[in-house]
């Protein structure tokens, strides 16, 4: 629909413009505290380098776990009808609306007060105030999002393609691997990228379970928090721009993949 010059449409466009300007202003304002040489110095500093590497590592791990678990779970939710399916779907929505800090606090209570959690934490993997805790915290926040996107992807693939593969001689598992997954590949890539970006920026749950220990559990958002606490605005600005750049790249790539999903 073309733009029609009338008061209603003009109001809509002005509000949209104000909204964009506000966001631009917010994102540009930290630049006031950055000088080019200072920015490079901060970017190459050990602390930000560590935070960046840890963020990439933990976000990649938690995203891979989310996708590996999310693929079969989302497929089951998309394809099968079972008693209580609506309850399960509703349960998956809860972490989406729950503050991550509450999820992190729940995880902390589980691993420090629940007998099973204590057993896991003391005998298998240490999560509380340790790097694996970051991965678990990111996984808990990210996996419902991964699962929801993947379910949408599977919902968009008609079940008749699986039946056609079965008729051609493929077992149910083979039909999933050779026909459904190739058809879902763009959607799976988009889900992976969006989940990774979400994990990269996760703060609340990580802070609660893994804490904010410099050079130990210091992811980019935790580093940002610590820099802000010591009023290092240049460091804060650098981290903000690293996160914003990553988010922009990932979002553009994910949109490209999602466009391909809608085309197939």
């Amino acid at each position, binding site marked *: 629909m073309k733009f029609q010059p009338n008061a209603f449409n003009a109001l809509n466009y002005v509000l949209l413009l104000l909204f964009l300007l506000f966001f631009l202003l917010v994102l540009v304002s930290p630049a006031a505290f950055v000088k080019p040489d200072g920015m490079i110095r901060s970017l190459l500093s050990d602390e930000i380098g560590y935070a960046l590497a840890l963020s990439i590592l933990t976000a990649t791990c938690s995203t891979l776990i989310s996708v590996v678990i999310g693929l079969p779970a989302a497929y089951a939710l998309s394809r099968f009808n079972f008693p209580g399916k609506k309850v399960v779907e509703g349960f998956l929505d809860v972490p989406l609306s729950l503050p991550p800090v509450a999820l992190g606090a729940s995880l902390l209570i589980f691993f420090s007060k629940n007998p099973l959690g204590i057993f896991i934490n003391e005998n298998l993997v240490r999560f509380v105030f340790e790097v694996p805790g970051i991965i678990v915290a990111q996984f808990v926040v990210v996996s419902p999002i991964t699962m929801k996107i993947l379910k949408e992807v599977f919902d968009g693939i008609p079940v*008749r*393609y699986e*039946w*056609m*593969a*079965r*008729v*051609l*001689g*493929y*077992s149910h598992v*083979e039909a999933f691997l*050779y*026909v459904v997954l*190739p*058809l879902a590949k763009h959607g799976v890539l988009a889900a992976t990228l969006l989940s990774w970006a979400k994990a990269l920026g996760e703060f609340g749950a990580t802070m609660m379970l893994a804490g904010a220990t410099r050079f130990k559990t210091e992811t980019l958002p935790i580093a940002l928090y610590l820099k802000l606490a010591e009023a290092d605005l240049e460091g804060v600005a650098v981290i903000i721009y690293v996160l914003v750049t990553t988010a922009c790249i990932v979002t553009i790539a994910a949109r490209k993949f999602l466009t391909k999903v809608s085309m*197939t």
Partner: protein
Amino acid sequence: MIVVRNLRTCLGSFCLDNVSFDVADGTVLIVVGPNGSGKTTLLECISGIRRVESGKIVIDDIDVTYLPPERRRVGYVPSDYGLFPGMTVEKNILLAFRKSKGMTLEQLQRIVHLLQIGELMGKNVESLSSGQKQRVAIARALASNPRVLLLDEPTSALDPATKEYFKRSFRAVIKDVFNDFNVPVIYTTHDLPEARSVGDKLAVINDGVIEQVGSVNEVFENPRTRFIAEFLGYNVLEGHVIAVRDNHLFINVKNVTLVAQCAGNGWNAPKDVIVVIKPQDITLFSAKEQLSSHRRDEYTVLRGVVRNAHIEGSTAKVEVVVNGFSLKAETGLDHWERLRAKPGDGIYVQIDAFKVKVLPSTK
């Protein structure tokens, strides 16, 4: 060979019930019926997509009734062709070939050659026309080396031009493919001329029940029920037998007497009957003198009025109103033009007694 016995499956309130037929290798069974009559459900039962409640499906002496689809070796082409999107034609066909048992690369090349899809192999399936999709889907089904081939309305998605191409030349190609692979073929369609030219056997399905199955000629010449006669587009009239004489029945249809041939004078069926006359068996004349010189009880002559007429190819389809009821007639275009009749004109119709079929009334 495929043998289907007393097949039953239900989907909500609709049931496919007591379906039985067999199709020998190299034979094409055409299943015709209106929308929602159970044609697709039948094919889905045979392919294993739909669970069967009771009955038996035997393919090459193996009872496959409760086997999963992947163990049946059935080639299935659904009405939307079911090609995997986002993949090339080659990938679609190789997916089937990879699971074929005993098919050689030469045989696969023969399929590609017969169906004229060699040039399409590198193309994405979304970029194909509906006619190309149809050929690729048949090739993919054959590439799985099936023991039976199922085609669900393969021409329904074709645009008029491709359908016309199919009618003119590709039908022969399809026949060649069927002969070459010598497997039983079950083929559903709405198109009666297509059924006649492609099929060896014909089954007419209505509301989940097969009303008649037999050779194509047998079903077209001797429809066994009122539904089949109506579905085939024949004239179906309710009448009452008023006399039986010299191997002929005299039937009153809305105060007009029609003569039909019968075997012997012992007409034991009920007096209330259904009269079936094919439109092609009605001869039109403009004047009484021109009528045939047969004996009077070997044909019926009626006077009617042309209600409407339209031309389809080299045939004129004419509706004639006789004493308050309509008769559909078909005649050659040359003959129709010689008659010079137009809607509202009087016309004579002649119906030979041996061409009138009489069925017991279902009332």
